[in-house]
C-alpha cells in the first residue's frame, strides 16, 4: 500500500508538485496521468526515494520513505522513464547485480533471474550485452530489474515505450497478472492502455491532483448523465420533433448514418434523467424501428482532455 499525503516539491519559485495526496491500495493498478510537465515523474521520483519532497509524506507499506528508507525501498520496484541499464554488462550480469542491490540471497539468484526473464520474455538474450539489444528488449530488461527481489509495489513510468504491438499486449497481460499480488502505479501517454489495465486513475495537472476515481465514475461525473446514441429507420425531422417533446431530453442532434434509410441521432438528457425507456416506447408506438441504441460514456481520452484543458 502506498500512502501519499500533502506532497509538495519546489524547484526554485516553481511548485512542481503542489499538495498531492492519494493512496494506492493492495493489489490495485493505479493509472497516473497528466500532460507533460504536470509533475508525474517528479512525484514518482519522490515516491521511490530518488528525490526528496519539500514537505509531505510518502509511506510504503507503512514505512516512511525518508525515515525508514531501507525498509521502504526494499518493497519498491521502479522502472523510470529511461531504464537504468549498464550497457557494458550482459543481461544476466546486470540482473545478478540488481539481485545484490535488492539483497536477494545468493543461492536464490539463478532461480529468481530465470523466473523474471521468463516472465518478461528475455530468456533468449540473457547472455547478450545490453548495449547490443534492441530498444524493446532494453525496455523489458528495465522492467525485469524492477521485478528483482519480488517487491510488492511496482512503479512503472511508461512501461511499454519502444515495444511492438505484440510485446505491448504481453506486457499489459503481465502487469494485469502482477496486480494479483502487487500494488502498481503505471504512468503512460497511451490512454487506451491505462483504460484497459488500471482500476483507478489519478490525473494531475500543474502539479495538483485534478481527479482521482475509477475511469467509469470519472466518465459519468464528467458527462453528468450519459448521452445516448440511437439509429433508426424513419423521418429524421418528425422523430427529432417527437423526441424533444419527451420530458428529460435536453437536446437532440441529428446526423446522417451513411446507410440509406438509416438516421443516427444523439440524445442529450437533462441531469439525472434516464430517458431510454420513454424513447423506446415512443419509437415503437410510432412504428419507427430502432436499429441501434446505446449509452455514450466519454472515453478516458475525452476525460483527460476535459480535465487538463487550459
Amino acid at each position: 500500500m502506498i500512502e501519499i499525503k500533502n506532497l509538495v516539491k519546489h524547484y526554485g519559485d516553481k511548485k512542481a508538485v503542489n499538495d498531492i495526496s492519494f493512496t494506492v491500495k493492495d493489489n490495485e493498478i493505479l493509472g497516473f496521468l497528466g500532460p507533460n510537465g504536470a509533475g508525474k515523474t517528479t512525484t514518482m521520483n519522490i515516491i521511490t526515494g530518488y528525490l526528496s519532497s519539500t514537505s509531505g509524506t510518502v509511506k510504503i507499506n507503512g514505512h516512511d520513505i525518508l525515515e525508514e528508507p531501507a525498509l521502504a525501498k526494499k518493497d519498491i520496484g521502479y522502472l523510470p522513464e529511461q531504464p537504468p541499464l549498464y550497457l557494458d554488462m550482459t543481461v544476466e550480469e546486470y540482473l545478478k547485480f540488481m539481485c545484490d542491490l535488492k539483497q536477494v540471497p545468493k543461492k536464490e539468484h539463478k532461480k529468481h533471474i530465470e523466473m523474471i526473464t521468463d516472465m518478461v520474455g528475455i530468456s533468449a538474450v540473457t547472455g547478450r550485452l545490453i548495449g547490443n539489444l534492441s530498444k524493446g528488449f532494453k525496455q523489458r530488461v528495465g522492467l525485469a530489474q524492477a521485478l528483482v527481489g519480488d517487491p510488492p509495489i511496482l512503479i512503472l513510468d511508461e512501461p511499454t515505450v519502444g515495444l511492438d504491438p505484440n510485446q505491448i499486449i504481453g506486457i499489459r497481460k503481465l502487469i494485469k497478472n502482477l496486480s494479483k499480488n502487487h500494488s502498481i502505479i503505471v504512468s503512460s501517454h497511451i490512454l487506451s492502455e491505462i483504460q484497459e489495465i488500471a482500476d483507478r486513475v489519478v490525473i494531475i495537472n500543474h502539479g495538483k491532483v485534478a481527479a482521482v476515481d475509477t475511469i467509469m465514475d470519472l466518465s459519468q461525473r464528467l458527462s453528468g448523465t450519459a448521452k445516448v446514441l440511437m439509429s433508426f429507420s424513419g423521418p429524421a425531422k418528425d422523430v427529432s420533433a417527437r423526441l424533444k417533446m419527451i420530458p428529460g431530453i435536453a437536446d437532440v442532434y441529428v446526423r446522417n448514418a451513411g446507410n440509406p434509410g438509416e438516421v443516427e441521432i444523439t440524445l442529450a438528457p437533462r441531469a439525472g434523467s434516464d430517458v431510454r425507456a420513454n424513447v423506446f416506447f415512443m419509437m415503437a408506438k410510432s412504428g419507427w424501428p430502432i436499429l441501434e441504441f446505446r449509452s455514450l460514456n466519454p472515453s478516458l481520452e475525452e476525460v483527460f482532455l476535459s480535465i487538463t484543458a487550459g
Partner: protein
Amino acid sequence: MQAIFKREFLSYFRTPVGYVAMAIFTFISGFIFYSQFATGYVSMSVEIIMLRSLFIIIVPIITMGMFAEDRKRGTEILYYTNPIELFSVVTGKFLAAMALYLVMFINVFIHMIVVAACGGTVDAGVIGSVLVFFFMAALFISIGLLASVLTDSQIISAIVSFLFILVIQLLTVIGNYCGTAVSTIMSYMDIASDTRNAVRNAIAGAISWFDPFAKTELFSNGLFSVSALVFCLSFALFFLYLSFRILEKKRWSQK
C-alpha cells in the same frame, strides 16, 4: 558495497579504461626498471617514487566516469532507489579504483622478485615507498572521485582532478612562490627584512604543510611516520565524505 565494488572493478575491464591505465603503468614501470637494470644497480624505491608522478595521468582516467557516467546513462537512480547506503556506493567505487591500482602494481612486485632473485635488496625503504604509494593513491583517487561527483561531464571531471593533483604535486613550489611574492610586496612597503623573511617562511611553511610528498619523503629511507599516513588517509576520507554529502544534497536540490 560489495556489489558496487564488483561491478565497478569489472567495468574497468569491460571498457578500454582499465587496459589503457594498465598499459601506461606497465610500460613506464618497465622502462624505469629496464633503465636501472642496464646500469647494474636497481633501486626499487626510486622506481616506486618515479611511478608516483603517473598519478596525474592515471587517476583522472580511472575516476572521470565514476559518477559522471552514471548520470549520463541514467543508472545513478539505482543508488537512490534501492535499499543501499549512498556512502557504501562511494566506498565501493573508491575501493574498485584502489583494487585496479593493486592489479597494476603486480608489475612492480614482479620487479621486486627479480631484484631479490638477482641478489639485490628489498629493504624497509622499499616497503615504505610501497606504503606511501598506496596511501597517496587513496588520496588522489578520492580527489578524482570528488571531481566526478561535481560534474556531469567526464572531460571536465578529468581536467578538474588533473589540476587538483597538479597543484598538490607543486604545493612546496607554490608555497615558496607565494611566500616570496608576499615578501616582495612587503619590501615596497618598507617593512623590515626580518619581518619579511618571517612572513615568507610562515606562508611557505603553511602551504607546504599540505604537501603529502614532503611529508612522506623519509619513508624511502626506511623512516616511517604514522602522522604522514594519517594525513593522507584523513584527507582521503574527507574527500570521500564530501562526495557523499554532495550526492546526498542532490536529492534535496530545489533547482
